[in-house]
């Protein structure tokens, strides 16, 4: 799984950090999303999908990679 975030869309609602603190953080001054892991491990895929689904601004994009 490849994770991409769009800072210009992010509204700092914090839903992603609540769902997957291992993968997302917030910038101190304005709360904008900080991506901690572009390719999170398989054990985190469910929470990352939840984070993307809950993001109110659709600022998180996921691409499923073919593992090989």
């Amino acid at each position, binding site marked *: 799984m490849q994770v991409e975030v769009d800072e*210009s869309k992010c*509204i*700092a*609602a*914090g839903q992603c*950090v*609540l*769902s997957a*603190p291992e993968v997302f953080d*917030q910038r*101190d*001054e*304005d*709360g*904008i999303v900080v991506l901690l892991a572009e390719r999170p491990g398989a054990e985190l895929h469910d929470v990352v999908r*939840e984070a993307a*689904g*809950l993001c*109110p*601004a*659709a600022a998180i994009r996921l691409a499923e990679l073919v593992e090989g």
Partner: protein
Amino acid sequence: MADTLADTANEAAAPLPEYPMPRQSGCPFDPPAAMRALPAERPISRARIWDGSTPWLVTGHAEQRILFADPRVSVDEHQPGFPHQSHAMAETLDHRPLTIFNADAPEHTRFRRMLTGPFTLKRVEALRPAIQKITDDRIDAMLAGPKPADLVTALALPVPTVMITELLGVPYKDHEFFQRHGVTAVDRDATPEQSRESSTALVTYLAEAIVAKMADPAEDVLSDLAARVKAGEVTVPDAALMAVVLLIAGHETSANMIALGTLALLQQPEQLALLRDTDDPKVVAAAVEELLRYLTIAHTGQRRIALEDIEVGGEVIRAGDGIILDLPSANRDAEAFPEPQQLDLTRSARHHHAFGFGIHQCVGQLLARVELQIVYGTLYRRIPTLQLATEIEQIEFKHDRLAYGVYELPVTW
């Protein structure tokens, strides 16, 4: 033309429902039955509002998500055809400046970023000890005082009010002034004059406070705003308006959730027991999400207007059509929440729309979550014998307010 004739014929056959619809007596926590039926029957329909116009009424959870996230859906209340909340809101339109509520991107993004700093997860988590202390102090005071007590004034209102005044950096002793004008500013039955007077009083108070913080800054939101004024990023009136938004939104909403949630739990002791008997923060956090879903206190419909034609849920919303997104009905949509009329604190409810969705989703939602987790997680454990000191029929509900709730909640123990 054919469409117009067909629509007219339909309207003649069945008059459009009025929005908002009254809740039934007897089930104060449920949206009106006709509203609850809509997500399954017609997730997008039409309704008639106070001025006789017939905006779209969106009740389906999935359809709401699509529209909330669509940049062609605007909050610009100056667009002709915008479905205003009330006569007072329509009347005062030209006196209302651009704020986080009525601005689209990119202005919205600029406003929003000025406000988000204090509401990050880290900053809000750091407030936990302070919120816990205020909660414990208020419960101590209630236990030491006379029985019955009013839970609204004893706990529900003071906890979020103390928090938001500390966060902003205004003295808590002025809270009666904030609450009185805050209520009038958002009361949909207030006259335009009353509403303007209260808004002016609050803006003036906060503008003076921001100017004072420019000379003598502290560690608080008003000082942050004062620094932005100094840097030329924002004017004093605009900064004061942002502070008013935070002040009003920051206490009235959480206060209603605390009191209304407690009443709902007292009616369902087996659910209340789940909170009373746990010290697992995950259980409490899930319970809070379900209470947010079940109660959905923002019950007067989020107002929008289509800037272009938008196809959704088998309908075409035309450019210039008004749109109302009714949050309580989407949160009772059985497609999104099985057995939606059940308050089930163990379900997974985080995809609820209690805070809205899209770029206007509540700025203070993480603070609200922590406040509710602490209050719900503390009150029933500390007072396991808490009970209603009156009949539920005697409770007066806030049908007339932007946020649903109760005016008073007499409790004993």
